[in-house]
């Protein structure tokens, strides 16, 4: 699996209130949430972002609440993957459970808004399309790869239920 897109760069500790402010949590409709994605970090973000773009951040991306609205908003805004030095724990599991690809990479300080990247999820390799530089990411644990392969946690469970009923 591969993706490529333009980088939108953010800093440390991008919390879930910045990703999707609580004032919009009276709905879980992905289209509605996408309109307000990253609004308090960059009010114009939802207008500027295009399909398959990539969010790049520094440490502790997604800290704060357990709201799955955060990965939902990011995914529905068209973002194809999030790359950060580290992720907050609940955001990390939510992303895997929902099928939003995320990668941990120590060198995100070398990436900037407007860079074009291609990302190979199988090898975990990021390539900077303008400079040709490559960056390594942390391998995804086998168990979580299985989750992704079954199409997220609920698909995994659906399969189990179907097998039990069969």
């Amino acid at each position, binding site marked *: 699996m591969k993706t490529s897109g333009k980088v939108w760069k953010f800093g440390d500790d991008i919390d879930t209130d910045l990703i999707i402010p609580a004032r919009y949590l009276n709905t879980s409709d992905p289209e509605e949430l996408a309109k307000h994605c990253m609004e308090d970090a960059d009010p114009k973000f939802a207008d500027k972002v295009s399909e398959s773009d990539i969010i790049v951040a520094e440490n502790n991306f997604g800290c704060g609440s357990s709201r799955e609205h955060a990965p939902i908003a990011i995914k529905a805004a068209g973002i194809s993957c999030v790359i950060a030095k580290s992720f907050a*724990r609940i955001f990390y599991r939510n992303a895997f459970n929902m099928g939003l690809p995320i990668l941990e990479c120590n060198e995100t300080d070398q990436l900037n808004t407007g860079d074009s990247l291609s990302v190979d999820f199988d090898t975990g390799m990021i390539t900077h399309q303008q400079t040709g530089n490559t960056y390594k990411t942390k391998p995804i644990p086998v168990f979580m790869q299985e989750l992704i392969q079954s199409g997220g946690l609920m698909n995994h469970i659906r399969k189990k239920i179907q097998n039990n009923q069969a």
Partner: protein
Amino acid sequence: MGMTLTEKILAVHAGTDQVKPGDLINARVDIALGNDITAPIAIEEFKKSGALTVFDKDRVILVPDHFVPNKDIKSAMQAKILRDFAKEQGLTYFFDAGEMGVEHALLPEKGLVLPGDLVIGADSHTCTYGGLGAFATGVGSTDLAAAMVTGEVWLKVPESIKIVFSGTLRPWVEGKDLILYTIGKIGVDGALYMAMEFTGPIIETLPMAGRLTIANMAIEAGAKNGIISPDTITRDYVEQRAVRDYTFFSSDPDAGYAQVLEFNVNDIEPQVAFPHLPENTRGISEVGQIIIDQVVIGSCTNGRIEDLRTAAKIIKGHAVAKGTRLIVIPATPYVYRTALKEGLFDIFLDAGAVISPPTCGPCLGGHMGVLAKGEKAVATTNRNFVGRMGHPESEVYLASPAVAAASAVLGLIGGPDQL
């Protein structure tokens, strides 16, 4: 090698004798919790899974505490999803308006979460129950859906950090100050993916309210869970209320820790966390002059009866400063009634406060005290992120009920000693 109490609880729930940090386990959950923001997504996923009934109707708990009483049409629709599902599934513990309180204050109070439990909740402050000696962690709605179906959750066994508090507490220093101080020292990702185990002579004598406050904010240091070894204080608290049997676990003397931090509390004064991260802490003497528009006393961090008693003690005989609004939010109906009976409401009302029904309310900028552009608030809550309590250009300062109460009277951030 020995195990920490976090590891022991996880091992038991995974049906094995031994786990070590990094192990991925599938564990049985004792309680799976959702609220009016996170449960609607979980319920939708549950339905799509093809499952017909939840794994155990006594162990799936729904609390619509964020926007109930329904604040607008959209949140009314969300709360209705919970109401309908609770009815259809015959859930034993669904707390609607009237019985509803802030989930993490309500569940311990009702004896629904207990020492030795493994609790998951689709709410990040589920870690609160670590104060009782449970393993409790926040998850997303999909995890909640999966647990509602299977009664299980996948977890990575966390490394543990041990935090030892010793010395003598200064006046007005309480659980909130200890956890704010700790987060100030290690940062908002200082315990990322880890278990924070709080211990030492100060914790051993700390009342349950303070323990719950400390465990509540473990997530603000990025931790998976916060935990305190259960003891006689725990027993006194749970004995009368427990709806099930419970087990006390404690860490082995030779358990492994990624890090041990020792703090002498003699050095710790009441703490204030400046905008916009809980790690931006300062001692009250270093705050400077910050005029405030609003004070909020409430939330799952500090909305218990002990917190209201502290606030009332300080406010008694004073009035809220002109130009400042004080909003007091008892976290549960029990807290509400007790405060009423003890005459605390008279003290608050005489001082000019607003008393809200139990709700998360302004804690997440929902309702009952949302901030306007440029406004500043002192809150006993747990997060001061950008826009957390309202307008993105408003500011939240986190503090204990004592500091919040004193600040309401002063009209600027200050401690009880300044009154």
